[in-house]
């Protein structure tokens, strides 16, 4: 192991310990609420989001013709990212009647608008790939 790698790992350990001590010494951060949230953070992506993503990807790969497959998988991935970041806004639990300028938009509508754009792009990309796959089938490959 090179010196650089040893230094990176040692520095990383020190920085983690600083963070952990910081958490433990903070009166406004309770130990159990923190550990619970950290645990959820560790598993939600691996055990909840990722299996769904893989299932959607596998279904798309199995069921769709090749020209449709990649655009649909790309569309699912972008939609998942947008849905994830907008979920707390769509649920709207952060709304406060004394603060009308906080979360001022119609977020379900906003999410639908963004998804409509994403899937319009999927349609355009699919049509393009369909036309290209047909034309490449008609002209025999020269290579």
């Amino acid at each position, binding site marked *: 192991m090179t010196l650089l790698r040893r230094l990176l790992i040692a520095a990383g350990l020190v*920085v983690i310990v600083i963070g952990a001590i910081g958490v433990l010494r903070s009166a406004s951060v309770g130990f159990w*609420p923190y550990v619970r949230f950290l645990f959820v953070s560790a598993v939600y992506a691996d055990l909840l989001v990722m299996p769904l993503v893989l299932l959607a990807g596998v279904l798309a790969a199995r069921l769709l013709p090749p020209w449709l497959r990649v655009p649909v998988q790309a569309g699912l991935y972008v939609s998942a990212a*947008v849905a994830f970041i907008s979920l707390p806004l769509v649920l709207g639990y952060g709304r406060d009647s004394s603060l009308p*300028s*906080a979360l001022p938009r119609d977020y379900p509508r906003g999410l639908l608008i*963004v998804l409509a754009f994403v899937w319009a792009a999927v349609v355009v990309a699919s049509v393009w790939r369909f036309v290209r796959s047909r034309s490449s089938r008609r002209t025999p490959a020269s290579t």
Partner: protein
Amino acid sequence: MVRLPRAVSRLRSPRLTSQLGLMLGTAFAICLLTGYISHAIQHPPGWFFWPSRPVGLYRVTQGLHVATGLAIVPLLGAKIWSVYPKLFRWPPARDLAHGLERLSLAILVAAAGFQVLTGLLNIARWYAPMGFFFTVAHFWTAWIAAGAILIHIGVKLPILRRALTAKVRPTPAGDGWTRRGFLVTVGAAIGVVTVATVGQTIRPLAGISVLAPRDPRIGVQGVPVNGSAASAGVRDRALHSAYKLELIGPSGTKLLSLADLAALPQYTASLPITCVEGWSADAVWTGVRLRDLTALVGGGADDVVTVESLQENSPYRTSTVEQPHARDPLTLVALRLHGETLDLDHGYPCRLIAPNRPGVLQTKWLARITVGAA
């Protein structure tokens, strides 16, 4: 177990993971740096210096912090996907070193996920699921994430070097993904997330950022509000006819009524209000220069100033105005916003507004101004 179609699984490679890792590492570095800047402005260590100009610098650093944090969502998803089968490798650890490496990875995934989730909840103002004070937990967990990233780079450095310098493996044949196509899609996801939200700080995009937690055009007097007078419990004292602003300095104490303040020389400054939550809005403020007020009680150009709000029981009821901001002619005790009397929710009777500072330090409903540190 579902067998993955070959074209999909073939896309996974050390090169793809390394490229995603570099992008993610850069994004985390931006978040850590901008996040630390925001923390240091609010809790300055001795060596830290934050200037009052350019007036919109904090607007850029904090806007970047939140925008980059949101961009991390699709990046982190792609990165985890690219190594996902390794999660179920059996046995879980070959030896002690490998076991420790995997433990550091678990810490990395947990801390990175924690930062993204708490950040998202905070900009959506949904504090209940956290059960702890956001800023403190987000700050210390950033250290844990940074440390885990350093360890991860240290462990993976040879793979990273090899993957990025080796001859590029040809992309899988057929109609499936290409590596480039996948990276373009990751870029597209980042682009969509960014355009859908960044209008909360880049005003020309406000109309199309349909998922932005804020709209810089919406709010009383055309400016968003983050804390109302009602929730701060200041309404009665702020509207009281006997209201007086107290000035305390080396030469004594002065009490100024709203009429006294209005009779002093008035200045107008165009300064953004910038929230730690990443939104910002342009505004035109009119009022008395802070340095003119402190001079009335013997304050000098080199003095630090402490301002206090009528608000009680809030960690942000006082703020320290460091010397660069205290002496800046643009720093005002504002009485008017966009030419109108300041709305109660914007800090009536008067509030502090200084260039290049987070909104939480732009103290509203001023009660007292003291020359010197608190």
